[in-house]
């Protein structure tokens, strides 16, 4: 986890935070002026305090981000100096059937991920928000997959699904010949399953926090009106979770589009190129095919697509206007 974090979330938190920062100084200044503090510069650190981290981040995150755009117009084999190549890389990518297919595959896997993980995570999160003791213990167990690295998880599942020594060999009645990773549909199903196993806990956690924040009065009012648990879930809990659903879906989209480790270890993009998703194709082109220019172009494309989808989700949901969930209260 961790590589893909939400665009929309970041931006909106930023907006809120800067509003905050805008409001506070006025108050603080007024207050400090009144007792005529001798040194009003105390506890007002200069920009110098922020510089080391900013320079560091700039050098190792922002400079590469600019470079990736530059390199996408160059041809580079990783050894010599990059040569300017105009729009060659982009033209090649547009003509590359594997590239186009990889984008569709990435989108397919992302959509399947959202569709499987969201209902599961909402149910688990709402359930875990309840008070009983056993929920705390169970939630602690549910959390374990998040701790394991994607590498460890992929290796574990590959061993589990090994057609000769794994679970399919022991349960032939269920799996047939058992070579799940050997067919296109099987491989895609495994990738979706493993992603759900790995990430549902994170999203359940988001929903758990949000479900706890739902005002109790809403449920009390509904109970008085005679609404049952199911109706309460659909008419109160779900609408109240709207903002969390958006946050979580954006995380899933960015995370899904940038899935890499699991594909590398579980399927190697195969069978054939059946699970060659865009991020994996980028790695293959750059670090196996030594076409770093094309790799850069794919990487840039990936970021653009992920950002666009996040923006669309944010726009469509009205999240950017920070429409409240508290309406009708």
């Amino acid at each position, binding site marked *: 986890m961790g590589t893909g*974090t939400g665009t929309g979330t970041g931006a909106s938190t930023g907006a809120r935070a800067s509003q905050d920062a805008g409001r506070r100084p006025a108050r603080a200044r007024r207050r400090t002026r009144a007792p005529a503090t*001798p040194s009003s510069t105390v506890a007002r650190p200069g920009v110098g305090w922020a510089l080391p981290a900013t320079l560091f981040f700039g050098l190792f995150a922002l400079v590469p981000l600019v470079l990736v755009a530059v390199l996408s117009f160059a041809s580079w084999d990783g050894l010599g100096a990059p040569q300017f190549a105009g729009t060659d890389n982009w033209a090649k990518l547009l003509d590359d059937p594997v590239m186009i297919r990889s984008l569709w595959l990435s989108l397919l896997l992302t959509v399947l991920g959202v569709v499987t993980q969201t209902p599961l995570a909402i149910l688990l999160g709402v359930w875990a928000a309840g008070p009983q003791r056993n929920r705390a213990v169970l939630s602690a167990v549910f959390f374990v997959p998040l*701790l394991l690295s994607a590498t460890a998880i992929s290796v*574990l599942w590959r061993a589990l699904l090994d057609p000769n020594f794994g679970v399919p060999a022991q349960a032939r009645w269920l799996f047939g010949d058992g070579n799940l990773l050997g067919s296109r549909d099987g491989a895609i199903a495994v990738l979706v399953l493993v992603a759900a196993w790995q990430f549902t806990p994170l999203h359940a*956690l988001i929903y758990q926090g949000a479900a706890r924040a*739902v005002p109790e009065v809403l449920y009390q009012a509904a109970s008085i009106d005679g609404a049952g*648990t199911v109706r309460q879930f659909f008419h109160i809990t779900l609408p109240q979770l709207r903002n969390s659903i958006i946050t979580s879906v954006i995380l899933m989209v960015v995370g899904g589009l*940038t899935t890499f480790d699991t594909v590398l270890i579980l399927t190697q993009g195969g069978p054939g190129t059946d699970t060659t998703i865009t991020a994996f194709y980028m790695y293959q082109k750059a670090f196996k095919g030594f076409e*770093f220019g094309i790799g850069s172009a794919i990487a840039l494309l990936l970021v653009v697509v992920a950002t666009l989808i996040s923006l669309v989700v944010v726009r469509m949901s009205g999240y950017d206007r920070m429409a409240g969930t508290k309406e009708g209260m």
Partner: protein
Amino acid sequence: MTTNTTHTNHSKGRNRSVTRGRPNYAAGFGALLWLCVVALPLYVMIGATLQSRPDYTAGGPLSLPRNLTLSNYTQDFSSGFGRYFLNTVVVTASVVGLVCLLVPPLAFAIVRNRGLATSRIFRIFLLGLAIPAQAVIVPMFYVISKAGLYDNLIGVILPTAAFCLPVCVLILTGTMRDITSDLFEAMAIDGATTRRVFFQLVVPLSKGGLATIVVFSALQAWNGFLFPLVLTQSEETKVLTLGLYDFQTQHGVDIPGLLAAVVLSTLPVLFVYLFARRALVQGLMGVGGK
């Protein structure tokens, strides 16, 4: 500390059920089902590592282990995993060190400076949340090679730490905002320097947030895969995740040995989880954007 208290208020203060009234049997059943989905692979993993390879092959993954043995673990250690383990420890400790050195002053400046420059800087870090590591891996390879750090652990440590920064800044500024301005004013009246305010007020009061960023960055560094994969090559710089990947491609049929390596790579994390569960869960909730 401050985050901890708010969190506790949040979860325990309102001690009540979300789906009210009678216990929800359907949800409980679903949760148990999911428990099987989560726990079964973990059970197979640990069970497999405790038996010899012939036993495992004969019994299959779902059977109960009979003759318990730790030979899988000792074998892994003798085949290089000790080295990988050490490398991962070095990377993790350095990343955590760098993050702890860089983030607190930055967060302090963002929360207390309030100039245009710092709010711009904060915005840059928030946008940085959205950059996936894959997006920059090719230029990163270029930068690290040019700097002569290819196949050197330092070359892994620097980008890993850089990619931890945005989340850590978000978490720590959240904590530092909770320090009331009265405290700052009190110290100002006492004539404290900014440096003293930082070390005697801000750092002690941000312990909860600091713990969270330590756990978060440690987890990122420990589990990191892409940067080591692309930026290192030799046996001397191999980290655990990479060792696992190689083990899998080379001795994929030795499933007990392979799974023992998975357990080895995860054991310290699980150990930390037992002690720092709260900080970790908070950190991850922070990632989720609250």
